[in-house]
């Protein structure tokens, strides 16, 4: 059961129409190598879920892979402004924005994690979002007879997550913030990891507390050094400023093909299998 496979092979297992959870937060630790491979393979009608997304969502929307996005916040941060492609696609009706509070995305994933159909949530009750969306309902608490909002479970078909290191079976280490990645690894049916590097099983046994995703949850592992670029891997590498600016400013399709092409060798490795 060899789990280390090429980027192309790993992504080939994702079916059109899948519910896809994407690790990271805004410009940090998004699994961009996997994201770009999804774009290259022209997956269609994906349902994306993330608390706060940016470039990852924008790339998939630009590549026309997306049917809907469940998220609390989709935007680059201050410096780069709005997620242009996402915004236009929602406004034109091309994709559906399933607006959440970031926490209700967490609630929905937690429901899937513990195998229940919904999770109760405070606060959200005072919001037009509850009436406007069928994934929020108000029910009676049977213990107090007071009303409470419940959030419908989201069980992603696949989670794609970038980690700092893992062993050949997928026992994975995340250095720095985990964001919702660990939760996604529990809530999703399958997990595809991309990793900066492979470490030995002996290294794993040295610090079992550092393994935040155990191997028995992992389906496949893609070796992707700089796999978050042009986003950041917190503590390891920073945002590639020019790439993001170009992506946002140069809107013609040719430029997007060039963007995908520029990362192809880095993402796929030589001959499609990274020589690690």
């Amino acid at each position: 059961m060899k789990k280390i496979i090429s980027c192309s092979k790993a992504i080939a297992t994702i079916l059109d129409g899948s519910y896809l959870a994407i690790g990271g937060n805004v410009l940090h630790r998004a699994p961009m190598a996997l994201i770009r491979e999804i774009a290259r393979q022209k997956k269609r009608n994906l349902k994306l879920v993330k608390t706060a997304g940016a470039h990852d969502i924008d790339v998939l929307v630009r590549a026309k892979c997306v049917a809907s996005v469940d998220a609390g916040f989709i935007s680059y941060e201050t410096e780069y402004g709005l997620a242009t492609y996402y915004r236009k696609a929602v406004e034109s009706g091309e994709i559906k924005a399933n607006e959440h509070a970031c926490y209700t995305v967490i609630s929905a994933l937690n429901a899937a994690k513990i195998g229940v159909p919904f999770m109760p949530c405070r606060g959200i009750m005072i919001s037009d979002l509850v009436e406007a969306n069928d994934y929020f309902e108000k029910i009676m608490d049977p213990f107090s007879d007071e009303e409470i909002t419940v959030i419908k479970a989201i069980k992603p078909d696949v989670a794609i997550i970038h980690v700092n290191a893992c062993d050949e079976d997928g026992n994975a280490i995340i250095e720095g913030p985990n964001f919702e990645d660990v939760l996604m690894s529990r809530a999703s049916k399958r997990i595809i990891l991309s990793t900066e590097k492979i470490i030995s099983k002996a290294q794993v046994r040295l610090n079992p507390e550092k393994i935040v995703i155990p191997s028995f949850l992992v389906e496949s592992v893609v070796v992707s050094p700089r796999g978050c670029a042009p986003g950041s891997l917190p503590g390891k590498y920073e945002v590639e400023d020019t790439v993001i600016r170009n992506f946002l400013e140069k809107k013609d399709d040719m430029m997007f093909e060039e963007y995908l092409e520029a990362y192809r060798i880095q993402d796929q490795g030589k001959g499609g299998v990274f020589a690690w």
Partner: protein
Amino acid sequence: MVTNLLKEVHPADIMVVTIANLLENEEKVFHGVSSQLPMVAILLAKATHAKDLTYLNIPGGVNPQSLQLSSYSSAGYEVYANAEAIFPLEEVFDLSMRGELDVAFLSGVQFDVHGNVNASVIGSYTNPKVRLPGGAGSAVLIPTVKRALIWRSKHDPRTFVEQVDFVTTKGNIDRIITPLAVFKYQDERLQLESISPLTSIEEVVRQTGFEINTDHITVLPLPTSEEMRIIQQIDKKGVRYKEF
């Protein structure tokens, strides 16, 4: 007031000091993404009157030390490294849900006199003219945090409206801080509390889309030179100006 001095003062600095002064010692305070200005204000408060304030953020670094502020993110590694504990986003939300978070910094695009916040859409929800980034944590934090502090770098009649297009959330808003003024939410209304020394009551009235009572308005103080010294030390690169 010295006119020359006023010219040198940036509205962001007045906002930073105003926000810092709203924070109290021992409070648990959270900010999210795109929040460089509150970030500087929190650090200013911790460096002055609120040393025991607990500073929480998205990556989860509790009270991170010696920050190198970043202009493109307020959710990066810098607020995780050199922390005294890790308390990640999900836990911060939980803390607020169970009523123990003192302050959360949030924003929005439209605000109305009733304290409603819109961060969702301009126009109709199902067929929007503009799709906004979304309220991030607002829709659960504003109703559950003890005090929501809203800041916004724009103050115009499109931001402060009679009625928001969509109620993303409402709830425990304490104050809204803009380059021109501070609103306090009291008696179920946004009430003008103070104005910036760089503006006038007339300008605030003109730039606000709902009616405001202009009695008992105070003028915010200018940052002291000591405050400016500390701010510049905290934010060497001037990330607090990025929203302007």
